């Protein structure tokens, strides 16, 4: 593995918001490598740029300057639609607020990314059912989000993120809305899925307990990487 380029490589990535006096440096020259299969947690106080880092890595946002290599390919200059294609084919997202479509069944929610992949309907349904079974929601395929608990909703979101078979799972405070027991269940699920699927996970969190599941913890302050710590546990 040593000779391979890292899956994700950021070099001098800067993201500016606003102009002139109101200019905000959300990211200020970030250098970061994430290896294939690695589980990285990004921590930091609010306003430290951890969410912006996540958005840039997740191709929801683009750096103002700097390099972003994904599997060795420069992608910092991609336009909106090209970034959409990258998200569609290589990335999966889960959010603190779950972000499921309301009044839409679990199955339909999980199918959503597959629709944009242009997968035929029968295959889509099969894949979505499989993904729901994988997160332990077999039998709840036709429930609406409003009929599911928070932990179950986050499982649907995980199924949706993984249905398209992405390389990287981006998780933004995935346990922020859950109690400790549900949080642990979700983290255990993520860790086991990561093992099964050789998934790379990038997670933003402010909870030390959750960050402890990661291989490496990155601490951000004022748009820069302040420190890095490797966890003793080997995944």
């Amino acid at each position: 593995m040593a000779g391979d380029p890292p899956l994700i490589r950021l070099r001098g990535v800067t993201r500016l918001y606003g102009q002139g006096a109101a200019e905000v440096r959300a990211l200020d020259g970030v250098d970061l490598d994430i290896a294939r299969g690695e589980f990285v947690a990004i921590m930091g106080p609010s306003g430290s740029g951890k969410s912006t880092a996540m958005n840039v890595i997740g191709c929801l946002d683009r750096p103002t300057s700097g390099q972003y290599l994904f599997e060795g390919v420069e992608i910092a200059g991609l336009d909106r639609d090209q970034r959409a294609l990258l998200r569609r084919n290589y990335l999966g997202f889960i959010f603190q607020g779950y972000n499921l479509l309301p009044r839409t069944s679990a199955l339909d929610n999980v199918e959503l990314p597959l629709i944009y992949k242009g997968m035929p309907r029968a295959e889509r349904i099969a894949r979505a059912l499989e993904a729901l079974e994988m997160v332990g929601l077999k039998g709840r395929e036709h429930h609406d989000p409003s009929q599911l608990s928070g932990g179950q909703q986050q499982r649907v979101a995980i199924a949706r993120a993984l249905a398209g078979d992405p390389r990287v799972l981006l998780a933004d405070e995935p346990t922020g809305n859950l109690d400790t027991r549900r949080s642990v269940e979700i983290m255990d699920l993520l860790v086991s899925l990561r093992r099964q699927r050789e998934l790379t996970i990038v997670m933003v969190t402010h909870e030390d307990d959750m960050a402890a599941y990661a291989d490496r913890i990155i601490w951000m302050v004022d748009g820069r990487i302040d420190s890095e710590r490797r966890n003793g546990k080997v995944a």
Partner: protein
Amino acid sequence: MLWETARLALRAILRNALRSFLTVLGIVIGVASVIAMVTVGQGSQAQVTADVAKLGTNILMLRPGGRGMAPGPGGGASVARPFDLRMVARLEHGLDEIETAAPVSNGTATVVAGGENYRTQITATDARYLEAANWPLVAGRNFTEAEARSGAAACILGETVRREIFGGLDPIGQSLRLEAMSCKVIGLLAAKGASSFGSDQDDVVLMPIRTFQRRIAGNDDVGTVYIRVADGVATEDAAVAITYLMREIRRIGPEEEDDFDVIDMKQLASMLTQITGVLSGLLAAVAAVSLLVGGIGIMNIMLVSVTERTREIGIRLAVGAQARQVLMQFLVEAIVLSLMGGVLGIVLGLGLAAVAARFMAIPFTPDPAVVLLAFAFSALVGVIFGFFPARAAARLDPIEALRHE
């Protein structure tokens, strides 16, 4: 993908069924009024054409009047000289182009019989009128030549008059009073229904014109002459010949204008068709404005929908939807919405037209081309008024959209 998008759009619309219905109500009303107007308009045009065909296209109408005879500013100083029966006879025998010339005078009179009392139209004419007007009797008989010539007190009733005066009784052979004269009922006309303009054609009593002149009008005047042109003669040529002869009969000098009008029923028909066409076109234009308003309603609600569903759009963008796909989704939704409105409007409009046709006694003639056009137009409304909100949705920033409450 398009089918998939349409399916999703349909689902989104049905999720908010009541709001969707209220949204398309403008389109429904617009399309329904256009369809109803145009269908009724075409029906009445067909009716006019049929009426004229029934009357015959070889009929000319001759009336006192003429271009120089319009009432001047000083009042009725320039009333045209009336026609009389001698003139009609001279005209009929003086021209080969004329097959028959039937004199007709119209008036109103109160009919009294057995305590019933009814005011109706009088059509005073001679024995050839029924044939000329192509109007059959359902009972009794026509005037004889002798009755017509001598001015006998005989009359033929229209269906409405029969119903008002005699109810269920057989009127043939009964007597009734027309103003100051007593008159024997000899025939009953077949019911015709309403005319193109909605007047009841059966509300009439026929009597010999001499009787009318002597006993009711108190003069020798003839109101109109219905001329049936001989076979093989163009009505235009006959009209020219009639004009020449009439000028001679009425001794009109070369410098003077005609003091009569020759009216070609064919021209009258095309004029009527034109008028009804213009009228229904005008009404359809007004209805089209309501379509525009309906379109704005759709745009409004789609904009609200884009705002409400900002987070949904964010989610779609996050899982890899491209701007074009979000645009398509909202555009298709607007189109499906307005097409549903269009279909509802078509059904409603045809229903209204069918009911109106029945009440107006005109044929119900739905035109597939108009229906198709309305369908296409409502799709167009969806495209035009859906585009702006759809573009607004497609331009959303995924991060902003995901954060939206």
